[in-house]
């Protein structure tokens, strides 16, 4: 069976990371930004899995990290959505630029 080379997988994960970054900085909608952050996290997950498989095939450390990250991402999504709901209640919008009162 032909195996996929590591570089291809890294390429996918880098692309995913860059898309996430791009989304995070260009979108003004908080939910979209949350989705962008999830993309970044998942690009990291791919890296972990890939390196685990190619460098230390008989260990599971990378997989454990991924499970941890998925768990934390779930918690983070709950917190983020709570923040978004609260912003909607106070500002009647979920546009990030409508909430810039905390400044100098």
């Amino acid at each position, binding site marked *: 069976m032909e195996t996929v080379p590591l570089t291809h997988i890294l390429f996918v994960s880098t692309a995913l990371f860059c898309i996430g970054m791009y989304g995070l900085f260009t979108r003004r909608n908080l939910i979209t930004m949350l989705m962008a952050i999830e993309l970044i996290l998942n690009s990291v997950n791919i890296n972990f899995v890939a390196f685990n498989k190619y460098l230390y095939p008989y260990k599971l450390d990378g997989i454990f990290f991924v499970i941890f990250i998925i768990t934390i991402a779930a918690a983070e999504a709950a917190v983020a959505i709570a923040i978004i709901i609260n912003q909607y209640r106070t500002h009647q919008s979920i546009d990030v630029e409508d909430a810039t009162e905390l400044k*100098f």
Partner: protein
Amino acid sequence: MSNYSYIALIPLLPLASFILLGLWGRKYFKTSAGIIGTASLLASTLLSLYAAYSYFFVDGKINGAYGKVEVLKYTWLQFSPGLSIDMGFLLDPISIMMIVVVSFVSLMVHLFSIGYMKGEERFATYYSFLGLFTFSMLGLVLSTNIFQIYIFWELVGVSSYLLIGFYYDRPSAVAAAKKAFIVTRFADFGFLIGILILGFYGGTLDFGTLLQRLTSIQSSEFISITRASFLGVSMLTWGLLLVFMGGAGKSALFPLHIWLPDAMEGPTPVSALIHAATMVVAGVYLVARLFPLFAMDDAALQVVAYAGILSALLAAIIACTQTDIKRVLAYSTMSQIGFMMFALGVSGYGESKGLGYTASMFHLFTHAFFKSLLFLCAGSIIHLVHSNDMKNMGGLRKLMPVTHFGFLIACLAISGIPPFAGFFSKEGILMATYESNKFIFFIALFTSALTAFYMFRLYFSIFWNKEASTEKTHHGEGSLSMKVPLIILTACSILAGFVPFSKLITTDGIPLEEHMNLLFSIAPVGLALLAILLAANLYKKANTRPQKLSQSLGTLYIAAKRKFYIDEVYLFITQKVVFNLIGRPAAWIDRNIIDGSVNLLATVTGKTSQGIKGLQSGSVQNYALYFFSGIAALAVIFIYLWK
């Protein structure tokens, strides 16, 4: 040995009265404050009389000498195993004598003030201050170590400040209070350094141990303190002189006396208590307390003697020219304290050499009575005439018979006319001086004649001179509470001289046999009588002779009337020299360099924050951008630059 723990109550009762009246006086004790203060003082006085009785006549003597008793002593602040500040009460002949004098005079003043300060707005405050003062003074004389005395010394200064400035709506009173505080504080600066020197070399602050170590020639402490020297003078002399400087400040000796005449701005009973009978003799008491040490050092004793005689003479000359009744009395106080000081200065230690010491303490004792009597009489005169100036008085002898009698007795006593109190103590001083220093003796003789002259100048100008104007008689001599202290003090001024002092207080505690030499007394008494006759001739009836006399004396008279320009010298030194040469440059440095550097720092910080505050934009995505750039920078550093 009986139990002397009740001694603690003597200072604590006035303290209780201070706290009670200070906290709740204005609300609850507006009129009864006088009674409360007087009652607490009465209890203190009775206790101290009892203590004096049991110490002197029952059980104070050990092997024929009066020893020291320490009561309720405990360690307050431990510096090192050998050095600590203790608190406690020290009983020996002089401290017992002082608590009797202080509590008694204070009681008289409390009683007198009930009438004198009646209707005063801050009546209760006045009594609370009196309580504070009495507490501190009693604490001062009962101190067991030199640092404890210093603490009470400052407390006394504070209460004196409060009482001089009692009429704080009068600018002159405020200025006088400030002056008194600053001058005595300046002197206490020397006192503190002196304490440190003695404590450093002696290795202890406790009076008993200190004196014991530094007066035995073989002890290592004595050798080290006499070996060490600064500017060619041994550290022992330095320490004693600096301690004496503190004493000279409190006791208004030349040249630190300038605060005392101004301190007369306070209520008159306060002058009687603080600036005549008790606080100003604290310096004398201090020297007496450390006397065995002073006796080890001739140079320091010489300074004490000459500072004393100079103050006595100068003050007596100035007193002859003043017209404010309280100022005359203030200068007379200064002169009498000079007497006590030089008596200590010419004294030696042990047996008959210590006559000067005994005489000095005796004079302190008798002076307290007749001087407080003089001041209280002055108080009742001012109460009647509403003026301090002798020119507004005259012919008062029929209007105020009690005061007249008291004043006359006090004048006779201070002039040293037998058989009144001052005679015995002054004879003692003159005798001791005659035996050790002839030069000082002749000046002292002259000063004592001057004393008689200015006191009777005062007496005749107030009570004789011209007819009293009738309009001033709208109220009589004052209430009973004002007369009773006068009568009691008059009795004391007559009788205090008969106390067999040399049997009670001597340098080494061993009683001495008294030997009065009547032939010796002829000269001083004769001179005093002559001076009284001269004063009677000049001032008994209104005439022009005093003016002629003062004109013929010319510059001397003017210089004396201007108090020998000492105040002006101080003003010149402080305002012209100190302010211009030190004060103004220091102010310039403070304003420009110190403030400038702080301002510069503030400006730089402000400008920087102005510049970078835009970063804190409030936009989440900006923060995310900074975060990622930070991570990227760290990544670059870790990957490429971290070797």
